[in-house]
């Protein structure tokens, strides 16, 4: 497997350090401080060695500090995972357009879709509920019409009676 970012970072920094130390060789150092080197070669060597180890220590410390501050180890590993997940994708992925209104739009969509299906559901329920109530309202109207007819019939029957009654009275009058 390709080395992860953390591994790569460490390797690149180590290589940098190696090369820097190689560039600043003892020969080069002694050559620059030739007069002192002639006077005290051993001392020059030990000063050079200290110089190198101090420089390496400082650089390594700095790198460690940057790693700690940016939590780089963890961050690199999580980026490796994210990149790994996208390995089957060829085309360039979405990037922020620079227009916030545009970019927030897609973030809203899943919730709007959920909201839409919720509204569709309750609308359907409400329609079904109303359909049932409408049925009972129609049945109620029929019932009332029927009762009214019955009342009409009874009323007419009584009216017929009173007609008979009037006739009877007429007869008696006669």
């Amino acid at each position, binding site marked *: 497997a390709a080395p992860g970012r953390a591994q790569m970072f460490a390797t*690149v920094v180590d290589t940098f350090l190696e090369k820097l130390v190689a560039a600043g060789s003892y020969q080069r150092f002694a050559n620059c401080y030739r007069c002192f080197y002639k006077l005290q070669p051993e001392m020059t060597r030990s000063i050079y060695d200290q110089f190198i180890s101090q420089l390496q220590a400082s650089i390594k410390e700095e790198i460690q500090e940057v790693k700690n501050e940016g939590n780089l180890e963890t961050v690199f590993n999580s980026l490796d995972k994210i990149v790994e997940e996208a390995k089957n994708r060829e085309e360039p992925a979405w990037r922020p357009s620079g227009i916030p209104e545009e970019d927030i739009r897609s973030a809203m969509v899943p919730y709007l879709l959920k909201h839409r299906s919720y509204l569709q559901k309750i609308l359907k329920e409400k329609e079904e509920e109303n359909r049932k*109530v409408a049925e009972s*309202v129609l049945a109620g109207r029929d019932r009332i019409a029927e009762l009214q007819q019955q009342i009409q019939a009874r009323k007419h029957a009584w009216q017929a009676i009173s007609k008979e009654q009037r006739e009877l009275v007429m007869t008696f009058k006669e």
Partner: protein
Amino acid sequence: SVNPMAYEAQFFGFTPQTCMLRIYIAFQDYLFEVMLVVESVILKKLDGFPGCKISPLQIRKSTEKFLLFMKEHLDKLFSKMEEVLLQLVLNIPKNVLLPEDKVHEQYPYSKEQLEALQDEIHQLQKQYRAEASAGQALRAELEEQKAVQAELEKILQWFDGLENTCREHGTGNFKESFAFLTQNAKRLQDVLKDVEEKSK
């Protein structure tokens, strides 16, 4: 044209170039500091040789010469390191989408599509409100029907009560009894007429 590496900054929380710049400045400072220490150590050692002809100026020149050399190499090596790190470590490949932006992959909605979706939602809300008020109206009518039916049933019961009263008092069916009475009255009249004629 500077590539701000904004997407990387979104992920790391810092811009990679600034991170590298900070490291570079730190390295450079260390180099200078260490060189100053080297120079002061050498000068101190020279104090131990009063007879020696090496002047501090000479040492300073040596220091500058070595420092210059080291600085050149530091710059060269560092720019290589920076190039590699910015390309391979502190970068987000073009085909990679950060988790917080996944939604753009799943719902690549255009402005028009979103507006259509929002219109649809407004439409559904309107429809729902209409249904809800229709439902209220229907339930109100149901209540009203209950009252009306109760009234009408009361009237029917009243008629029933009336007929029951008649039945209890022997006139089962008013209509027939009136008709019967009328017939009898007529017959009585005829008999009366008949009697009157015979008596004349």
